[in-house]
């Protein structure tokens, strides 16, 4: 029997209620054989961690991680990606399917799950592709993947742009209770060369841009399709004020649409692109100040349900091209909580209960993970916990990352660095206490 007693910690549980929940507030937390237990029953043999002054929150869940394995193990592996996740406070993550080969079969999904279990640093849940090979023409084996436990499907990196295929996907997954996570972006409107936000900066720098309408128009279409099919839609990495307006409109009509925002879209703006540094090339692109303000507001009021990293590691040489030719994406697992604390807590936009809701409870609910993930701590349930020091700050050093890749947009920037201990499925996966 293993016993872990975390003493003196301030537990923030989020707004959800449960009869057997651990009470919020300062207390000791006992984990016996990986499950929450009554701390008054702790034995003398328990491993003890003094957490005076620290805060515990339900383990973070990332709805949107690119682990790159199989196929691009020079950029990231499941081992290094989940290690980075643990250091970032994540108990679980959902691995996007744009690997080589694509996760578009039950076997491929099982393989990802196995790699995650073998690595052991965070619980890995595969996201299945919507279409075979992400080609956007034929449905992938959604049902067979769902039977292996896949609850989220996405062609992320590509928009499922064919409205008939999108309709079929939404219809088909409804009996499984699964959700289609859409990379909302009209590829015809944006054009194949688009690499930043279309606006004053793109016009001046001579970079082809994505207009905001390319995102909002697809969300609006998909909301209608979701209503038509009585299904469930999740909008990946919302990045514009217009998209927020469309989401508000859709939710108000009772459509089952959820949405995520990345930490980098809460902090970084189009201004970062001025130096043509491909580190800041990301899809969807960084947007102007007014969009960032709208996203912060939407995450605060719940229009956007969750934070998701879109952790997109790239080997150095894939970024060492001219801006327009470089790969899209930035890493984000290790800095996510720090950025959210900075932009949402330290700015006063959100309280800690709200943060727990957006980083753990909502992601768990959207992906229907179960097993003590995405719920407030409950006696008898598996322990997934992130212990943090809310006031701790540090200068981000990309070279100190556990990720194999260095495309870190915050290098040299001082940010909250709160994660002290991560516990996933009852086991300590990271600790610096």
């Amino acid at each position, binding site marked *: 029997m293993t016993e872990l007693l975390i003493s003196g910690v301030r537990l923030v549980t989020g707004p959800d209620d449960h009869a057997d929940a651990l009470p919020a507030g300062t207390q000791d937390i006992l984990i016996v054989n990986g499950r929450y237990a009554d701390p008054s029953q702790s034995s003398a043999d328990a491993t003890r961690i003094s957490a005076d002054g620290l805060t515990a929150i339900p383990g973070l869940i990332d709805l949107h991680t690119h682990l790159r394995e199989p196929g691009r193990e020079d950029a990231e592996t499941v081992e290094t990606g989940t290690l980075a996740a643990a250091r970032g406070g994540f108990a679980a993550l959902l691995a996007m399917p744009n690997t080589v080969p694509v996760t578009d079969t039950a076997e491929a999904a099982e393989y990802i799950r196995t790699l995650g279990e073998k690595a052991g640093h965070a619980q890995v849940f595969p996201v299945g592709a919507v279409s075979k090979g992400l080609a956007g023409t034929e449905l992938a084996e959604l049902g067979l993947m769902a039977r292996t436990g896949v609850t989220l499907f996405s062609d992320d990196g590509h928009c499922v742009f064919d409205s008939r295929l999108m309709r079929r996907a939404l219809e088909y997954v409804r009996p499984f209770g699964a959700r289609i996570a859409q990379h909302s972006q009209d590829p015809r409107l944006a054009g194949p060369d688009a690499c930043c936000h279309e606006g004053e900066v793109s016009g*001046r720098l001579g970079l082809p841009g994505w207009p905001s309408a390319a995102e909002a128009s697809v969300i609006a279409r998909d909301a209608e399709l979701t209503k038509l099919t009585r299904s469930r839609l999740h909008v990946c990495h919302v990045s514009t004020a217009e998209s927020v307006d469309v989401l508000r409109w859709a939710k108000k009509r009772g459509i089952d649409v959820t949405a995520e925002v990345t930490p980098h879209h809460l902090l970084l703006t189009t201004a970062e692109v001025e130096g043509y540094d491909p580190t800041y090339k990301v899809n969807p692109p960084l947007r102007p100040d007014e969009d960032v303000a709208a996203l912060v507001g939407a995450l605060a009021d719940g229009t956007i349900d969750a934070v998701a990293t879109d952790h997109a590691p790239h080997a150095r040489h894939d970024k*060492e091209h*001219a801006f*327009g030719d470089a790969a899209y994406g930035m890493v984000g697992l290790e800095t996510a909580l720090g950025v959210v604390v900075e932009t949402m807590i330290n700015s006063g936009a959100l309280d800690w209960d709200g943060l727990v809701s957006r980083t753990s409870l909502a992601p768990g609910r959207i992906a229907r993970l179960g097993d003590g993930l995405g719920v407030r701590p409950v006696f008898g349930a598996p322990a997934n916990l992130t212990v943090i020091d809310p006031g701790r700050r540090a200068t981000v050093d990309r070279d100190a990352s556990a990720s194999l890749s260095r495309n870190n947009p915050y290098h040299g920037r001082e940010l909250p660095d709160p994660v002290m201990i991560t516990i996933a499925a009852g086991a300590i996966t990271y600790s610096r206490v």
Partner: protein
Amino acid sequence: MRHLLSTADLELTDVTAILDLAEEMADVQHRSIKKLPALRGRTVVNLFFEDSTRTRSSFEIAGKWLSADVINISAKGSSVSKGESLRDTVLTVAAMGVDALVIRHMTSGAPLQVTGWTDAHVINAGDGMHEHPTQALLDAFTLRRHFGGDTGSFSGRRIAIVGDITHSRVARSNVILLKKLGARPVLVAPPTLMPAGVDSWGCEVSDDLDAVLGGVDAVMMLRVQRERMSGGYFPTPREYTIGYGLTRERVSALKPGTAICHPGPMNRGLEISADAADAANSLILDQVAAGVAVRMSVLYQLLGGEDQQ
């Protein structure tokens, strides 16, 4: 001045110095022996990731007339399609002992990025839709001569830049430089070829060429790139010409002495009629000649004063 990446980086004094020196350099092409010893022993590499005849030749002649060793490297097809990163391509070339890299790239910002990977001076010979600073300088040189000789001659001059503004590096460099010189650029294009955020460029914007033409001191026609024609930017070449081409009728609507410019290569009959291209007030060949003088001046400004051990 360490690099020439953008006209925005140039102080007015830099511009004047480049144009004044270009006047001296322009004399070289009238000599029987077109050679100055100024850059003897220096190596200039024209690293072109995109096709170009006139710009590359112009830089090559400029370098050779200054006695530099000039190497042309065509990286067309781009380092990307070869699987090599831009950084590796640049490091490879720079490792050969290069003093200046003249870079043309199909992607905006590439020359700026290159400055982080080499000690060589970098000259932007056109990057994507961003800038083409030596083109703007040679345009200014040509117009300065046309207007009468000094920088003051630009003051208050209205200069129309007409055509595909969105995709034009020439337009961007010229707007910045002409404003710096005191001129008033007017951008003219159908809305489909006008870039996002153009209202913040600090110049007049119009979609009505006829309303603009009568009141300008110079008109710069931009090349319509063939690949744009199928991109839905305008319905047909015929419609474009009727709306935005410098036709014979429009030439006659110009004030006497209005300069006609074009960075080339021209699509005669599309954005510019033969009558306009060959008109008495057309400066198009003067621009080509000025290109060599201005590029000699730029190369000398960057490399000429250095210790040549």
